[in-house]
């Protein structure tokens, strides 16, 4: 039984990272109805920038702060230059553009820093604590805590501030928000910037475990997509639950299902996605949309 709990704990730790990326994806989807396939690679790029600054001798926390700000700006630049001109284009066109972001950011990262793996310093201390026979690493706790803080602060901003209200309004109905005086373009821009910041948090949290490489976030992106589908594409809360569920399911499935095993873990989120699409296509916490002719 202790193996089971051990697996659940490690699943929650990876799930927190999937959840973080899923929040970023959901933020962008709510704002602009786009699934950003480039999110993970943008995050990798930010993580590389952080690594570079730490390598230059800048203190870890300072470089994190600077790069978080920089990611925010990169998110805005990407939105302004590639996404804004195409708003209203059909879905497949938007998928192609974000796929372009995926390829482009990965290639640029590889061009600047090469394909070698690099060690990324953990922001949490080493070691672990034992809770009833289950060994919990401090970095796992820290990851969960970071996710909780990020999710909570976003939730609070959305719920209780004027800015959050405007952002929700412009996500809900662009035209009507414009009519009541909300600067919709600015809100969409903010959404993209915020998503880039959260994506970078996910990348920085996972980098010590996976080692930094240009393709580091590609599998994570898929888990994030599965998490967002599971939780519902218009619900940040759903993204968190979905991420944790995907993490635990992956960890348990990889160990208990012999035909899945460690190599085919990625099948678990695919199966989860297929099941949720068959049973409740809008996801656990998503809402149905009515289309008018």
């Amino acid at each position, binding site marked *: 039984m202790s193996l089971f709990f051990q697996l659940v704990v490690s699943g929650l730790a990876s799930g927190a990272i999937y959840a973080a990326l899923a929040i970023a994806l959901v933020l962008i989807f709510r704002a602009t109805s786009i699934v950003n396939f480039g999110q993970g690679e943008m995050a990798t790029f930010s993580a590389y920038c952080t690594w570079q600054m730490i390598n230059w001798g800048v203190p870890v926390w300072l470089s994190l702060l600077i790069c978080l700000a920089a990611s925010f700006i990169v998110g805005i630049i990407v939105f302004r230059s590639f996404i804004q001109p*195409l708003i209203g284009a059909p879905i497949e066109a938007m998928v*192609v553009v974000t*796929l*372009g*972001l*995926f390829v482009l950011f990965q290639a640029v990262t590889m061009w600047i820093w090469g394909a070698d793996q690099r060690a990324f310093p953990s922001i949490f201390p080493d070691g672990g604590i034992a809770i009833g026979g289950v060994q919990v690493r401090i970095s796992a706790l820290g990851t969960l805590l970071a996710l909780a803080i990020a999710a909570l602060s976003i939730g609070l901003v959305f719920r209780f501030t004027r800015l959050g209200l405007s952002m929700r309004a412009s996500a809900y109905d662009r035209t009507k928000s414009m009519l009541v005086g909300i600067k919709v373009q600015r809100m969409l821009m903010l959404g993209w910037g915020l998503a880039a910041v959260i994506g970078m948090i996910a990348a920085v949290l996972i980098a010590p475990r996976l080692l930094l490489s240009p393709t580091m976030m590609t*599998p994570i992106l898929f888990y994030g997509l599965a998490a967002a589908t599971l939780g519902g594409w218009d619900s940040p809360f759903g993204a968190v639950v979905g991420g944790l569920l995907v993490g635990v399911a992956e960890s348990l499935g990889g160990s208990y299902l012999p035909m899945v095993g460690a190599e*085919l873990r990625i099948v678990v989120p695919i199966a989860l996605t297929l099941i949720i*699409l068959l049973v409740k296509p809008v996801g656990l916490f998503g809402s149905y949309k009515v289309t008018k*002719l």
Partner: protein
Amino acid sequence: MNSRSLPTFIKVGAAAIALIAPVFLPDFLLFEVCIALSYSIAVLGLNLLMGFAGQICLAQGALFGFGAYVTAYLNAEFGLSPYWTLPAAAVLTAAAGLAVGLPALRLQGLQLAIITFGIAAAFPQALLKFDWLTGGVSGLPIDSLETPAPFAGRPELWLYLVTVACAGVAVLLVSLVLFGDTGRTLRAQRDNAQIAEALGVNLTKVRLWAFGISSALAGLGGGVFAILNGFISPQSFLAAVSINIVIASIVGGTTTITGAFIGGLFIVFVPTWTSDINLALGNVIYGLALIGVMMISGNGVVGLVKKLVCGMLQTTSGNVPSLKSIQGRKQWIALRK
């Protein structure tokens, strides 16, 4: 339809070039062109699905690999002649594609993109996992084709002709689908799913058809790829192949047939030419091409050429009318009279 397809002389010219190409191309380049053609068959399928049906599939490379493995397995295990494995590859891949697409196709395009993205990532892993079937890392060999006597001196030429024949079959199939009723239905549901449904189009059925044919073409392309190489391993079907096929479709022009071949050549020759300069350069070009095409013309190289050619043909009439506005369409009709 006439006003939207390339002038006949360009098509005839392209076909003529394809026929005389092997005469002056060295063997190695001819082989590269064959590989490009095998990709083009898969790209053609994706064009049908993405350009005409409005559904995006990011697992075309995995289906391509599935077809390649069907060919290799039937040949290696049952000693089936490589020629006969090709139809089997197409049919079995179509079945596999439908099994994947059925749950996702009930919904809007995004879900299909997400599911297929996962399949593309999982496929190479699955190949390694089921090594009793696929040979694992060491891959599977395929017998080389029996070359008929007249081509004995240059077997590459025979391979080229077989590849061209398969590409021809693919073009024929796609044209048959597009120019009939099915093509109209496909475009209708792409342009406005609700109205099409209200007019009696069964969305799921139409999309499944498109997905099935697209998968079949991916399988056929994969089979040809396996025969050309004579050996396949999971390394040839990484997730990047699926993305490359999307790139080929977009760069060539996703609502065209000619574009599939331009795209196929693009994804084979760009990496060859750029890897000498910088390994990442090819991907930078890919990324910029994907975004650029979407922002500039939306219909790739063929779209640009059409614009240019139409512009040249109609310089006398001043501006080229746009098909997007009603006024523009009226001008077009007037011009064609």
